[in-house]
């Protein structure tokens, strides 16, 4: 899968591979022995956040689980 930042795809794939392994082998087993992917994540984030700014993607000030208000049934 490609990244929204054309130059970030390789960094993304490298990070994803690391994450998927950690997620399955450590996190889901509630092994809290630390995340081996932090450096890769930093590099990837640096690249993708830059691309997001360049493309003006409106992600700023969107709260986590953002618009999670109760809505009436129609």
């Amino acid at each position, binding site marked *: 899968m490609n990244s929204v930042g054309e130059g*970030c795809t390789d960094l993304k794939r490298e990070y994803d591979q690391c994450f998927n392994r950690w*997620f399955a082998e450590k*996190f889901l087993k*509630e092994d*809290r022995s630390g995340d081996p992917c932090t450096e890769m994540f930093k590099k*990837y984030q640096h690249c993708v956040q830059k691309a997001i700014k360049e493309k003006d*993607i409106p992600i700023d000030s969107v709260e986590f689980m953002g618009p999670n208000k109760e809505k*009436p049934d*129609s």
Partner: protein
Amino acid sequence: MVKYFACVGLLKSSWDQVCIAFWERYPNPYSNHVLTEDIIFREVTPGNRLVSRRLLTKTNRAPRWMEKYLPVTMARHAYIIEDSIVDPQNRTMTTLTWNISHARMMSVEERCEYRINPDNTSWTEINREAWISSNLYGLSRAIQEFGLARFKTSVTKTMKGFEYVLAKMQGEIPSRTLAEHATERARETALAAKERAKDLASQAHKKQQYV
């Protein structure tokens, strides 16, 4: 005015496998409309929950009758955010997905809860809710109908995508005819919904007043 939709889905795989598949679901044969995928935030909370934010770019598949009302400069690609919380202790995952572009025209918000199926603990149950709304004067009902119909088709694709990825993970090769059948059924549903939405749009257009 908001259109509400809820359904329950079942995946015949363990909650663990489904969560793993959740991060590996793109690309799959049912996700050709998904162009890019990025994790743009991730953290493990002190309570050992994984919180993540994923940014997706999708093609903006508006029907032709709707495109007439879109400004020429409107982006062809839609941006979607998906926030998620994975709780390995309680074996639950909650996701919230919504579009951050084209939102005034149509806003679709989906909330899912992934839990162990109470009747069969080696299966996973997905409780899905969606809220579809539109603020476009005179067309909101037609757009909401379109949005709801497209959402239902999306759900079919999502579940098929999951099943495909899970089968791949478990070393089975999914049958080609299954995939073709699903695509065909999704197409038929979309076509029927398209016709209905088109009718509503032309009715709305006749009543529309020009400001």
